[in-house]
């Protein structure tokens, strides 16, 4: 039942949002086509400006993954994270989640395939995957787009929030799914 609702909500939400925007604008006598084109103009330049920042960050992360440095790091951090009550199967996910969106999704897929989506680890991995975003990617994207160099406390705050999110994910799964 919930599944059907979620599926249809997901499918309906964007079209209905567009519908409401268009009809409301028409009622307010806005020249809808002209206004759309005028606003859309910025889209290209903003995206293209992001290329150098994205290349720099994704190459660095690609190198960390392919060189084996990240695996080494995961091995070193596992005892520390296990002391935070994190099951060792999800440790690689906890480390990858803030760094690389595609990397994290690959690990989640692996866990769900190997341990099963309805196992405890599968549920924890799903909750972790769904509850935070790729901190480093968002930072690069958002700050890069406006040329901010000094990011102040954003990275530590983002990583701290990720850690709390992971601990919360595990704790809630323990309580709900036992």
């Amino acid at each position, binding site marked *: 039942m919930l599944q059907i609702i979620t599926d249809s*909500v997901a499918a309906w*939400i964007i079209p209905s949002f567009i519908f*409401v*925007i268009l009809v409301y*604008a028409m009622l*307010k006598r*806005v020249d809808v086509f002209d*206004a*759309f084109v005028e*606003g*859309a103009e*910025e*889209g*290209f330049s*903003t*995206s*293209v400006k992001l*290329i150098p920042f*994205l290349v*720099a960050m994704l*190459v*660095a*992360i*690609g*190198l960390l993954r*392919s*060189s084996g*440095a990240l695996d080494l790091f995961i091995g070193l951090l596992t005892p520390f994270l296990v002391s935070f009550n994190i099951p060792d199967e999800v440790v690689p996910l906890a480390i990858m989640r803030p760094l690389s969106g595609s990397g994290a*999704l690959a690990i*989640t*897929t692996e866990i769900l395939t190997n341990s*099963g*989506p309805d196992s405890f680890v599968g549920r924890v991995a*799903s909750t972790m*995957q*769904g*509850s*935070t*975003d790729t*901190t480093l990617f*968002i930072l690069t994207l*958002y*700050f890069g787009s*406006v*040329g*901010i160099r*000094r*990011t*102040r*406390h*954003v990275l530590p*705050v*983002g990583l*701290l*929030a*990720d850690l709390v*999110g992971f601990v*919360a*994910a595990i704790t*809630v799964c323990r309580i709900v799914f036992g």
Partner: protein
Amino acid sequence: MVNSIWFGMMFIALLAAAVTGRMETVTEAVFSSAEKAVTVAFSLISIMTFWLGMMRLIEKSGLIHWIVRALRPLATFLYPRIPKEHPAMHAILMNMSANLLGMGSAATPFGLKAMKELQELNDDKETASDEMCTFLAVNTSSLTLIPTTVVALRAATGSINPTEIVGTVLVATTCSTLVAIFFDRIFRHFYRSRRQRGRSKCSR
């Protein structure tokens, strides 16, 4: 800080590759990652163009005022210094609504638009303003009501009940967002005072 983080990542990766003897894999990874970055940027062009067009419609028609009114308490708490009817506030609230509704593809364009408008209000163009920091803190911890990707992935891997994690995700994401907002408020003062100290030194 970004400079040393980037250098550190590249340096460690290259050293590790030399030690583990994966130089060939690493060479391939350089170019495949660069290609992926350009693909990401190009796929952004389409959604940026579409949603920024929609954003202009929302502003011109005045629909934005309803959204501002609905989210006003939250907005004034998080961003007390941004005027209610400033374009930065509009984009921030649209980004917030898109995230809450699970429209990930729309959240990024609104977010980038918000950064652009926040930069207009920023005195020091190279340093993140308080508002930018709060905005990023809220965004990286991603307050989502419907985690569509994970639900789809669970269904694809044969879960009996793919949506059973919606509740646990909501609790976890709320925790991380609250922590992000809390620590943003605390750390903000520490980093600001350090920066101002640096500035007063320069002026002397």
